[in-house]
């Protein structure tokens, strides 16, 4: 079901990760993603896995919930795996016409799958433990320097936070429209690609109309509450670093240092 997509949804519980400053989590996620592409050795994988597992443990988000979020991107994952499997040159293991699987391809795709999975889990951990509002606040603060080159940082972060709030609502709406059209004999499941694409029109048109209506309503409601962009706004929950945030920064630096050190050392050995 569409509703089962959990990627990007806040998971309310009280963990140390939830209490961290969103800026730490944003920068941490960024560092984690970089670290994923820094190493080549098996050792590196072990370090990254240990790091990720401990962060998951700290977050108190159930593992099943995280895995459920992965379902949504499984196609992307499979696509990358297959692409790597078939198109990496090297020692041929199995061949059928032009399609061949190489040993390097197999290894590559396996590692790629792990990296991608880690990347998705890592970044969704951020959204699981940070409310969209905190996330936008953090993003706004982190990206503030870009304001000088005329990037509308506040507007972008506001847009993101609204998008996140309306995702569950629009998903539910999709479900409802789908059922209503099925009650009128619509068929979303059978037929060729073209027929299926066409069958989406009765779903997409009402969905867009509704999204525009909501956007219009929301804009009016925001203006009625005196919203006029970022200037002159105060914060209900202003961002302030606590000691736990400095500890988190320190651990992140240690982790990144370990990865880089491993990378240099192992290269030397090999």
């Amino acid at each position, binding site marked *: 079901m569409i*509703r*089962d997509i959990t990627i990007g949804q806040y998971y309310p519980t009280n963990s140390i990760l939830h209490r961290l400053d969103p800026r730490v989590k944003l920068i941490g996620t960024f560092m984690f993603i970089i670290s994923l592409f820094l190493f080549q050795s098996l050792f590196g994988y072990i370090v990254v896995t240990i790091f990720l597992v401990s962060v998951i443990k700290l977050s108190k988000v159930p593992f*099943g919930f995280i895995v*459920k979020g992965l379902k949504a991107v499984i196609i992307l994952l499979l696509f990358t795996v297959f692409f790597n499997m078939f198109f990496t040159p090297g020692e041929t293991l199995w061949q059928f016409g032009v399609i061949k699987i190489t040993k390097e391809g197999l290894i590559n795709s396996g590692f790629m799958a792990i990296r991608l999975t880690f990347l998705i889990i890592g970044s969704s951990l951020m959204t699981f433990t940070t409310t969209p509002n905190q996330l936008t606040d953090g993003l706004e603060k982190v990206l503030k320097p870009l304001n000088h080159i005329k990037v509308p940082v506040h507007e972008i972060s506001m847009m993101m936070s609204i998008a996140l709030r309306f995702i569950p609502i629009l998903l539910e*709406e999709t479900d*409802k*429209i789908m*059922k*209503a*059209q*099925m*009650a*009128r*004999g*619509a*068929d979303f499941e059978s037929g060729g690609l073209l027929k299926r694409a066409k069958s989406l*029109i*009765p779903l997409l*048109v*009402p969905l867009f*109309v*509704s999204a525009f209506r909501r956007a219009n309503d929301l804009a009016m409601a925001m203006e009625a509450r005196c919203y006029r962009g970022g200037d002159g706004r105060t914060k209900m929950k202003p961002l302030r670093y606590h000691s736990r945030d400095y500890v988190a920064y320190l651990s992140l630096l240690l982790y990144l240092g370990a990865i880089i050190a491993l990378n240099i050392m192992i290269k030397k050995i090999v």
Partner: protein
Amino acid sequence: MQIIFDKINYVYSGGTAFARHAIKDISFSIEKGEFIGLIGHTGSGKSTLIQHMNGLIKASSGHIYFNGEDIYDNSYKLKELRSKVGLVFQYPEHQLFETTVFKDVLFGPTNLGLDKLECELRAYEALKMVGIGDDLLDASPFELSGGQKRRVAIAGVLAMKPEVLILDEPTAGLDPKGRDDILEQIAKLHRESGMTIILVTHSMEDVANYADRLFVMNKGELVLQHSTKEVFAHYQELEKMHLAAPQVTYVMNALKDRGYAVTTDATTITEAKNEILALLRAKG
């Protein structure tokens, strides 16, 4: 019997951890041509129940028979069921998508695979039934008023020529005039075509005027299924379920409490008026 529910249960498992019993052990039967009012507060399982009737949701256990056939038989065609049991969702105007009113109503019959002439005939008839005039056939559905949009959406289901028409809160959000118009259209459909009607609503006043029988749902269970008068006689129970009988029922009961010899089963203004007039005319 046109529709029979035999011990229907539906357990909703939205995730892994929390399975919820959405409806519990529901059994009833509906005769052809009946007008049923289905009431219950939000979350009582009404919407889940009606989605079972045309196979959009499959029960966790139990059987549903439509015209004597088990709809969960492997050979049973659900698509055919959906054309015979028309379901109009809440705010149906949100499902309009075509460029013209006429084309939108054509969507249903076209999906049934009928030939073009038949489809157009049905669409035209259906629009007539809900009182949409020829002048609006080529209008964009998005330019209509709220009440008109809703009627076009209902026509979209009627064009499939269902034997049963289920409407989920067809009057929600409409002003009194729009509400009366829609209810009148539905009552007319029922009178003239003998279609079975199942009306889901919160408004007791709405069902009191039209329904033969009332089904009352509470916490996933069908707690009452009687004639309208009998159900409203249970007005104190209804209140415990966060429902209420029409105001006139309260008037009659209050009069009785004061010791007047009145019957308390009036559910409409006319009935109450006649009862009170009889009381006032009686000597002493």
